[in-house]
């Protein structure tokens, strides 16, 4: 990389570029995610060895267990994809948790009211989108920082969910009201699997692929990155900032709605408070995955990896026989460590 000895001064055009004039074909998303993926593998190996060493057997590094971890991750993973977009755009969404619960509650309410899943699921996803859209609209029109707006809507959506659920748990009838495929959507029972994975996991992979494409190859993505990097510049360049925000928060809301479907599918019941605290897990997933809260940086692969790491730690600690306190401490340390390492890596890249 020490090519640019631009000593030619300005008699001729300087040749500041590397000889190749082809754009870098590396997909940055993959590149960024890769480092986190490496961390994931390391943690995985450590737990595997620890289990084998301390417990004398290995249940951790089994296909079954991997499936189980991934299935536990699904709710957070789906929502974190949407959060990645928001965080790249320099925003944040504290209402994601309660909006997931609201979506799940709407889904359960529809089923309980004997609507078919074909109506209930779109209704849930639409609910998520509307939550996102409202966030976007408030952020754009009130010009209040997203942290506050979504701190407010967080409580708002909680209240609405309680209203829909009449403050209690909604429990549609398993036999008559919940379709089988929805019940086993994230189930890892052998008879629920499809090509070795719950169908819900395949859907996540599909959605993640679409998000990668969206974030790399669309015009909209450039607007998202511009917003996250410098909002005034975005405005100066004629980007319709309010609409872009409304658009991207709605899009993220779509993911939130989908996460609501996953949450419902995991328990086949819905409970209005079930999203409290989830927002911080979701944000942590994005951040462990390399997203920067200053905007402008984040990756899909990283986020998915980050989500898995969070649940991996819980799973691993239990398998190794560690107590809850230790588990919490480990998670805390890993969040900080992951971001620190990513930071160091970034700095090194910038230097080299």
């Amino acid at each position, binding site marked *: 990389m020490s090519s640019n000895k631009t000593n030619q001064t300005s008699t001729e055009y300087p040749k500041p570029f590397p000889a190749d004039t082809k754009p870098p074909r590396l997909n940055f998303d993959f590149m960024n995610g890769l480092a986190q993926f490496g961390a994931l593998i390391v943690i995985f190996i450590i737990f595997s060895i620890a289990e084998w060493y301390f417990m004398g057997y290995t*249940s951790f590094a089994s296909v079954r*267990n991997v499936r*189980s971890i991934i299935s*536990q991750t699904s709710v957070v993973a789906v929502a974190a994809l949407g959060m990645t977009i928001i965080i790249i755009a320099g925003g944040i969404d504290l209402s994601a948790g309660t909006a997931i619960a609201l979506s799940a509650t709407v889904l359960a309410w529809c089923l309980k009211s004997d609507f078919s899943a074909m109506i209930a699921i779109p209704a849930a996803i639409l609910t998520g989108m509307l939550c996102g859209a409202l966030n976007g609209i408030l952020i754009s029109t009130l010009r209040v920082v997203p942290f506050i707006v979504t701190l407010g809507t967080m409580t708002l959506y909680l209240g609405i969910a*309680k209203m829909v659920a*009449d*403050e*209690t*748990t909604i*429990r549609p*009838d*398993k036999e008559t009201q919940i379709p089988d495929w929805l019940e086993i959507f994230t*189930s*890892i*029972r*052998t008879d629920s699997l499809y090509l070795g994975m719950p169908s819900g996991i395949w859907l996540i992979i599909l959605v993640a692929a679409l998000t990668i494409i969206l974030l790399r190859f669309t015009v909209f993505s450039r607007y998202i990155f511009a917003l996250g990097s410098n909002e005034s510049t975005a405005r100066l360049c004629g980007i319709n900032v309010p609409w872009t925000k409304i658009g991207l928060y709605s899009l993220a809301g779509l993911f939130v709605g989908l996460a609501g479907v996953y*949450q419902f599918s*995991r*328990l*086949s*019941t819905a*409970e*209005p*408070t*079930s999203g*409290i605290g989830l927002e911080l897990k979701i944000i942590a997933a994005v951040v462990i995955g390399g997203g920067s809260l200053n905007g402008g940086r984040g990756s899909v692969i990283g986020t998915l990896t980050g989500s898995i790491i969070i649940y991996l730690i*819980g*799973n691993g600690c*239990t*398998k190794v*026989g560690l*107590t*809850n306190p230790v588990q919490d401490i480990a998670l805390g340390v890993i969040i900080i460590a992951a971001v620190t390492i990513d930071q160091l890596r970034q700095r090194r890249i910038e230097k080299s």
Partner: protein
Amino acid sequence: DSSADNGEKTYRIAVIPKGTTHEFWKSVHYGAEQAAKEHGNVEILWKGPQLENDREGQISVVQNFIGNVDGIVLAPLDSQALVEYVDEAVEYKIPVVIFDSGLDDTSNIVSYVATDNYNGGAMAARRMGELLNGEGDVILLRYNPGSESTEQREEAFLETLKKEFPNVNILSSDQYSGTTPASSLAKATQVLDTYKNEVDGIFAVCEPNAAGTLKALQELELAGDVKFIAFDPNTDLANGLSDGTVHGIVLQDPVAMGYLGVKTLLDHIDGNDIDKRVNTGEYVATPENMKEEEMSNLLAPPQFGGE
């Protein structure tokens, strides 16, 4: 204080559950409203904290009702933390009935209306011991620290097993499921997965806890093989009794609890004699007895706002 049209006084009674999301409380609410209706001129103000570990939330509800109500019926989510605030209400001349879960200091309260939770836990242990023929490895999934009712069940379960079924081994009794079905599912999955090769039985000490455990058993394909005892019913658990995935449910009588809680308070206000301790009873539903009328009623008790 306001008055009804006929000049008679309308009593406002605050009924404060430990939380609102459990189905259990819906039935308590139903019972409370029954008592109010029966008495007449009574308005029930139903309000609880968000989650069953939100001490500050429940304290706030108690404090906020002071000045507005003629009596409080409270299920304290912590037996010590609420003492001060019950005293505060009493200082303000508001009578307080405690229900469902105990309070450390009962000197100022009107009455305590609840299940004998220790006995409930012991019944669960006996049922487990019988199912396992006195031998096997079991898991106790705890609820939430500080909740007197469930702590009683947990202690009773462990002590009874130790005393009456010394060959039953406890694999794990230090895991707390948390107050929601979601946290219970996560915790139950982890614990069951860890011990899935050894476990013979599991006891979940209340409804959300059991709901999560049932789902976890199904996911891990252990349902039916592992003897599962729940505390408090819901439809899935009741169905589980018939399809062999649940082997026993300890039942309380939430409707009676709500009813007697409010009734006792009203009796006190009206100057009638009341008992300092009212036991609302505890039962074990099994696949065998679940069709009996009393059991089937308790397995699906009426709920407030239900049909």
